[in-house]
């Protein structure tokens, strides 16, 4: 092993998705703590905080690669930020370790994907929701590629199921004026709501939906749930007390996961942070990405990206998500599906689950309607 290998950590700890960035940042720190606790010293983190400024992601990645010699970067949360960083990582033939759920339709050789794509979150979520609540959803989303593409796919799934999308609305990340959307929902009376909003607009929306449910029980979570694929334990504190109670979220990890690995992990974390801490799937994913990166660098005896990637793809790795297999064709991790219901302890109760599913980023195997070829509809 060469002298001091550096892993770049690229998260925004402020801005509209700051709560997520802070948790991911902490997950990365804890992974390094774990590494040092077992005697590791050659691998060190270099943190860069782009403060939610899109152009700063590119500057940050450039600084990590050029000034600090990082060949691995763990980070970015939004797809816009990931897309900013990828060309630079490709140019330097480095590896980006991306660990958030995203909208799919990407499989880059220079990226290891630890977060899920829609066949691992949205599709099983709909498999759960449609038979129970009907195929008449209302779609809301953040006004960028995550919201747009998740809702496009939702629309396609609903169309294939013979249902109807009753409405589709978008809000910028920091917009909290949700009254018109909620009024529209009250009028249209969907059977459930798919929430792809991010950050403050999502919190305001959940609070407004709770008020609507208090006025009209048809909109209480048990009748018309609000379901999302990216809500985190670390965000629940930012939502008005109890406002999100009973709502649903799909993820591959929840703090409440009842496995020996998770209990041991949580005990170590409590000792490190000096008190009990609720672990979000972002914290767990960042921890997993950094730990996997470190383990693969150690196994390869080098941080040369092609050797590290070969190690990652060569075998199953123990992780908080269970034995983790990263697919040799897509570079995506197989992930379990968990459906959580928000409880009154700022956490999720797991109400449904499925074992690890291989990622299908381009939905090549998804059951589609016949006529797979594009048709011009005049």
């Amino acid at each position, binding site marked *: 092993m060469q002298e001091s290998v550096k892993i770049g950590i690229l998260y925004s700890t402020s801005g509209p998705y700051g709560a997520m960035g802070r948790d991911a940042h902490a997950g990365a720190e804890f992974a390094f703590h774990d590494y040092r606790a077992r005697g590791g010293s050659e691998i060190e983190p270099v943190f860069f905080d782009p403060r939610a400024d899109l152009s700063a992601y590119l500057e940050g990645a450039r600084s990590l690669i050029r000034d600090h010699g990082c060949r691995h970067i763990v980070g970015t949360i939004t797809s816009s930020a990931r*897309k900013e960083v*990828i*060309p630079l990582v*490709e140019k330097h033939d480095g590896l980006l370790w991306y660990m958030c759920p995203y909208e799919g*339709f*990407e*499989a*880059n*050789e220079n990226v290891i994907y630890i977060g899920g794509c829609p066949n691992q979150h949205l599709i099983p979520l709909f498999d759960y929701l449609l038979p129970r609540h009907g195929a008449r959803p209302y779609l809301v989303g953040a006004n960028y590629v995550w919201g747009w593409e998740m809702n*496009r*796919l939702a*629309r*396609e799934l609903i*169309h294939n199921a013979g249902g109807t999308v009753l409405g589709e609305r978008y809000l910028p990340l920091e917009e909290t004026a949700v009254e018109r959307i909620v009024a529209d929902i009250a009028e249209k009376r969907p059977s459930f709501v798919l929430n792809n909003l991010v950050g403050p607009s999502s919190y305001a929306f959940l609070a407004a939906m709770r008020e609507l449910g208090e006025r009209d029980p048809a909109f209480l979570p048990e009748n018309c749930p609000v379901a999302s694929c990216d809500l985190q334990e670390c965000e629940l504190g930012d939502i008005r007390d109890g406002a999100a109670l009973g709502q649903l979220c799909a993820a591959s990890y929840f703090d409440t996961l009842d496995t020996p690995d998770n209990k041991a992990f949580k005990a170590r974390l409590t000792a490190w942070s000096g008190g009990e801490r609720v672990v979000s799937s972002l914290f767990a994913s960042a921890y997993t990405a950094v730990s996997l990166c470190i383990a693969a660098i150690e196994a390869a005896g080098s941080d040369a990206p092609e050797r590290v990637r070969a190690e990652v793809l060569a075998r199953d790795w123990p992780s908080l998500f269970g034995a983790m297999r990263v697919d040799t*064709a*897509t570079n995506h991790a197989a992930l379990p599906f968990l459906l959580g219901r928000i409880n009154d302890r700022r956490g999720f109760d797991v109400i449904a689950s499925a074992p690890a599913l291989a990622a299908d*980023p*381009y*939905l*090549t*195997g*998804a059951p*589609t*309607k016949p006529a*797979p*070829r*594009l*048709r*011009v509809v*005049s």
Partner: protein
Amino acid sequence: MTTRTPNFTGWRAVILSEADGNTDRLCRQLGLLGIAVSIQWTPLAAADLPDLVLIDADRGWDELLLFSDAAPACPVVALLGSEAPGRISFALRHGAGAIISKPVAASAVYPALVLAVSIHAERVEARRRIDHLEERLKLRPIVFAAIVRLKAERHIDDEKAYAILRDCAMRRRMPIEQLAAFFLGGSETLREVG
């Protein structure tokens, strides 16, 4: 509006290029999409057309792909590093509906495929409509002759005669040209109209 997710699973693609780093990356991305890929640097046999062709437009020569721009037989994607107008023209002449720049970026492949395939489908549909309209145009004299005969038989004006033909064609769900031909041939008497 629902945009259907394009799905290329089970497709067969031929890359007309010498094998290099670019074709390696193309093969990887096409494989991810469920496409069976082969590479050749010899002319494509007309009898064995794949679902999709990717062609090196920097170095390709005309016989490599005997498609015309007017009616390419399958979707074509050009691989292009050069900016020379002659090479861009080569790509267009061989029916390219999209370009992937060299060096090939992984993120360029899927969008180019979707674009080339939908442009190809549009061209096929446009060609079909033009053929159909040209056929109808050729038959216009028959409609004219039917109008002249109807006018004489029933002592009506042009507009009325045309309306009778049009209404009857609609009722029979056939083009007006066909109906006019039946009328002139005696197998259609247009009895119930007019």
